[in-house]
């Protein structure tokens, strides 16, 4: 082990910059700064290393939270003023796992940093490109009227509310709407020339290459292709959808027909499985927990060793939070996680349980 010495260099320019970025992130980045930050971070490997190290150090200092005593119930910025009493001597070695205890970031930054910040997965340096964008949580938006939208990964919506109507454009992908009741202001989702109209209800809208799908899971919804948006002289017929029904509008057909069919319960579940659900497990074998996640997400978690299947898990997660789940497996059970392919994370057992690794850290 190296002697602690003052010959070790001062911080490098990259580290000084990392300190500034950490302070800015702690204050909250503006959107311009966020772009600038990502650019700086990806510019050079040394930047990423400096950032990982400084974010770790920043998080470490949080260990001092609440070090003041109840005798200091008055706020005292000088409680840590130098006093001759403290003289630390021994050198401590830290476990890499502390990295992920660092200060939280906005999700987009977390994604950008997963390689450098997530030792278990980052280390493996695979030849393929892991689809980390698919690890993002499902976005939830609360709209001004109290309605709630889940927006699937890779999808986007635009809000255009007026005093007469609540209009939303689904421009890409799929979303699920839970509409707040307001009979005086209809809620309309416009998707590729089709108006989906609701008052107070829950429904999903999905735009794929050549069709629009609407599924109603509560209440009623009106689906109406807008004549002017289709090259057709035949009058457009709208359809009232009931709970459990799906409407399909084919976009490239000459006559915009709304095809309605009633779905079975399993079919509805399949179609809406991407939406976040609160999963509660009580002494559930890990294999079933993993199955549940895999059915809900494009990223697939696999168990590298069959003996892991029977671990009993008592916990609860959001179904779209694969990252949180994998991290908990790493930190609590001491599993290691590696990318098996671009959409697969393999969990396997560490040689030693965490308690032993901790003892050996010197």
């Amino acid at each position, binding site marked *: 082990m190296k002697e602690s010495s003052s010959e070790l260099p001062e911080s490098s320019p990259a580290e000084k910059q990392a300190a500034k970025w950490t302070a800015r992130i702690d204050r909250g980045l503006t959107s311009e700064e966020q772009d600038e930050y990502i650019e700086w971070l990806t510019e050079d490997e040394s930047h990423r290393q400096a950032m990982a190290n400084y974010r770790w150090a920043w998080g470490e200092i949080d*260990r001092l939270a609440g070090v003041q005593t*109840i005798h200091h119930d008055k706020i005292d910025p000088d409680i840590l003023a130098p006093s001759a009493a403290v003289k630390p001597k021994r050198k*401590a070695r830290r476990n890499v796992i502390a990295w992920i205890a660092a200060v939280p970031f906005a*999700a987009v930054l977390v994604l950008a940093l997963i390689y450098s910040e997530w030792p278990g997965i980052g280390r493996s340096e695979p030849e393929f490109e892991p689809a980390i964008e698919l690890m993002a949580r499902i976005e*939830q938006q609360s709209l001004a009227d109290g309605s709630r939208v889940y927006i699937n990964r890779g999808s986007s919506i635009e809000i255009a509310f007026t005093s007469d109507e609540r209009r939303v454009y689904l421009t890409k992908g799929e979303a699920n709407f839970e509409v707040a009741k307001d009979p005086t202001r209809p809620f309309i989702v416009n998707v590729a020339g089709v108006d989906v109209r609701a008052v107070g209800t829950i429904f999903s809208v999905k735009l794929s290459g050549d069709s629009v799908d609407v599924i109603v899971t509560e209440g009623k919804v009106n689906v109406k292709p807008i004549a002017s948006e289709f090259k057709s002289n035949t009058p457009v017929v709208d359809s009232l959808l009931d709970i459990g029904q799906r409407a399909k509008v084919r976009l490239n057909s000459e006559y915009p027909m709304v095809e309605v069919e009633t779905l079975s319960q399993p079919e509805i579940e399949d179609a809406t499985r991407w939406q976040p659900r609160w999963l509660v497990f009580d002494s559930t074998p890990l294999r079933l927990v993993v199955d549940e996640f895999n059915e809900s997400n494009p990223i697939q978690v696999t168990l590298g060793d069959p003996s892991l299947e029977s671990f009993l898990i008592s*916990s609860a997660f959001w179904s779209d939070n694969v990252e949180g789940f994998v991290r908990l497996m790493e930190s609590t059970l001491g599993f290691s996680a590696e990318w098996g392919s671009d959409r697969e994370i393999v969990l396997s057992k560490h040689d030693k349980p965490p308690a032993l690794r901790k003892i050996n850290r010197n």
Partner: protein
Amino acid sequence: MFSLCCALLVKEQETDQSQWFVDVVLPHEKDLRNWLRLRFPSIRDVDDLVQEAFTRLLNAHSSGPIANPRAYLFVISRNLAIDELRHSGHERPSGAVELDPASIVDELISPPESAALKEEIKLLIEAIQLLPARCRQVMTLRKVYGFSQKEVAKQLGISVHTVEAQIGIGLDKCAVYFRRHGYSTR
């Protein structure tokens, strides 16, 4: 029975870690939830946030001592909450979100001079002690008391910009100090 969302217990794999969790951390869960609901009424999901805070606390605990687990838990949760509000963009985190030290310190913590504190904590404290006075005050208010940069500026009567600059300087010096003392991630 304690809340399902937080306890990850593995039968026949009971470790010191999970015992510590049950004894030291779980008793604060209710306070933490109440406090979060009160201070951040628009947070989408308190369960989720509490679980994340527990995970981070466990990670930190598995790698070294924590001066005051309760305070640490509150600071992490607050950071997570502010971050979530920032991310969702629906609400600007405001100065109204204060971390009241009195709500956090519920037990007698050894003063910094006490030998009871672990060596790593002592090292952290020394890193702060060696900072220039203004810088030390900023870091103390931000990290020990958990005030936001804005609140620190108000407390010390200095500009927010100065606080940010001092945090950059303070962190840089602390990181160098850690490295010189072999206190690192590797």
